[in-house]
């Protein structure tokens, strides 16, 4: 199968764009694992709910994309916080497998309910007018909206990395994770901090959902399809490592893009091969550390 260089460039560019999308999605998962040691499979459901909130805001309240970018993640974060306070915090002292299983159960409930109420067909959501159209690069047409997604992704990644590494909030969050008793001794309300952190991680997924709504069909199934990939991204990058999520997200987008060129049937599975290889050589991931 021959492919000219221009066409190949287009393929890889798309892969990069998708990779930045994976990076945003995996940020939330990474933060939560770093904070709580819990693999939050519900993240996929929150992504989907974020997209649905955007649709609901438009459909029922006439609130457009820009409003949704702020309101939807807040709504999703609120739900996440409630779930954390009521349910998820009960499994912290247990084996981490229970956290994985609990969030898996929540994923089933949320997704199943949405399928029951809305059906699986998907809801229409338009690209906002300001972001329509694109640039003709010669070898392909690059939609403005995709550029926007990359810009947001880079911005979010940088902002998250900066907050965790450089600000008081980030430092305190990290301290609360590594030495909770000591942190509490300093007068910090650790449980509340954990809740805030969880809300942040979940809100990031909701935001990713709003970003996805104009380009991917808004359907209750959109979370399950993507969570497995994001899961692999975070594992490969290193659970709890922000830098790891970003690097592996983008790289895996590229790898998936390359696979779509040479052996498309395997494009959903190649990520698992990577995951296995990384887990064998360095189980904590490329940038991760032992918890």
């Amino acid at each position, binding site marked *: *199968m021959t*492919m*000219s260089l221009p*066409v190949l460039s*287009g*393929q890889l560019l*798309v*892969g990069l764009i*998708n990779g930045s999308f994976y990076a945003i999605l995996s940020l939330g998962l990474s933060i939560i694992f770093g904070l709580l040691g819990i693999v939050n499979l519900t993240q996929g459901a929150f992504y989907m709910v974020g997209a649905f909130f955007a649709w609901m805001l438009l459909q029922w309240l006439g609130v457009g994309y820009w409003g949704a970018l702020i309101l939807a993640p807040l709504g999703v974060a609120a739900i996440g916080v409630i779930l954390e306070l009521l349910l998820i915090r009960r499994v912290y002292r247990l084996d981490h497998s229970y956290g994985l299983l609990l969030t898996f159960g929540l994923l089933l409930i949320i997704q*199943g309910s949405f*399928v*029951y109420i809305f*059906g*699986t*067909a*998907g*809801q*229409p959501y*338009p*690209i906002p007018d300001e972001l329509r159209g*694109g640039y003709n690069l010669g070898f*392909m*047409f690059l*939609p403005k*909206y*995709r550029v926007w997604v990359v810009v947001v992704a880079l911005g979010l990644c940088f902002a998250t990395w900066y907050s965790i590494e450089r600000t008081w909030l980030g430092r305190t969050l990290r301290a609360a994770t590594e030495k909770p008793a000591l942190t509490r001794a300093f007068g910090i309300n650790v449980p509340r901090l954990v809740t805030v952190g969880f809300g942040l991680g979940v809100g990031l997924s909701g935001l990713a959902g709003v970003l996805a709504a104009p*380009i*991917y*069909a808004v*359907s209750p*199934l*959109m979370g399950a*399809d*993507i969570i497995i990939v994001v899961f692999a991204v975070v594992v490969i990058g290193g659970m709890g490592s922000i830098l790891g999520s970003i690097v592996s997200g983008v790289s895996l987008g590229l790898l998936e*893009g390359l696979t*779509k*060129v040479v052996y*498309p*049937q*395997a*494009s*959903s*599975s190649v990520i698992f091969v990577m995951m296995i290889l990384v887990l064998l050589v360095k189980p904590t991931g490329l940038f991760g550390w032992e918890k």
Partner: protein
Amino acid sequence: MRPSRLLGPLAVLAALTSVAAAGEKSVKIGVLTDLTSFASTAMGPGSVLAGQLAVEHFGGKVLGKPVELISADMQSKPDLAVQIARRWYEAENVDLIVDVPASAAAIAIQAMATEKDKLFMATVAATPVLTLKGCSPNAVHWVNNTSSLARSPVSALMADGAKTWFLIMPDYQIGKDLVAEATPFIEQLGGRVLDVVYFPTGTGDFTQYLLRAQASGADVIGAGAIGLDLSNLIKQAVEFNILPSSKQRLAAFVLNLSDVHAVGLQTMQGIYVMQEYYWDRNDVMRAFGKAFFARFNRMPNFTHSSNYSAITAYLKTVQDIGTDDPKKVVARMKEVGAPRWGEQVKVRADGRVLFNADLYRVKAPSESKEPWDYLKPVAAIPIDKMFPPADPSQCSLVR
């Protein structure tokens, strides 16, 4: 014979004798569909409603017996479907099963119908196996199969001048079946398939495949993606300026009206698709569409309407021959044909129901005058262009 084995037949005997000279009290039809999972919008509650309407419009009785309609949720799990079907056929006196969205389950249930001497009408499954290796004297394949799904857009668009094709297909049996059927037919009509891409189902982003299709310069991009995959594919084709195009057309091989509704006319306009039923096509179809809409608030998919027409044909045939014996019903349909949307259609020896259909184009928003006014017919597709001949080497019912 072990003593415990006698208990079974004894129990049945007891049940039978307790109901004096029962015979069959009703004609029972089961709609086995996906009510709450992946196929619930394409089939699901709509299929059940279509079945109910068929029974109601027929009058609720046949040969002096009441017609009973039941339904169950197979949740997209083939073995659950098989389990329910077996219980229905063996223990609950169900005479006819329809719907069954999973091809694995449809093939298995058709075999079961043969084994138990019951009736199965494939009203939504598209696998060609049902009239080939799996053909049965107790079943008819009522809805389109991959042969007609593949051939329809090919014959109509190539008659309109299209020559080269780029196929984007799901990496599933249905995708392979569509390619296997479309490719020789395209070549037979003087065209060429430039390339085929198989994508894993559940792919969210089709951009790379679409860019390749665009670069290939093919006259038609043939998309075999189904449901959500198709919605994403078309959305991204529009986003990346691949559609609308004066040089390339997109034909969807498998599309439901609910998909058009989900994505919207703005994005979907100009797509070519074959539909064996469209609510606005003629008076007969419109009557059902409006009755369905009155209860469901949505216009029916061709899958829903397939259940309606199949059950109607079944009841009419039973009425005609005075018995609901499955082999006799099927034999009758093969002999004189079956009523379908106001016409009498032929049913082949292998169980394949033959009908013609239309190629449609999705309207632009400005062309749509009322809700659900989505499709514009552009070409009729004659029967001989839709179905390949029966294959006696695969189905022994064909002589």
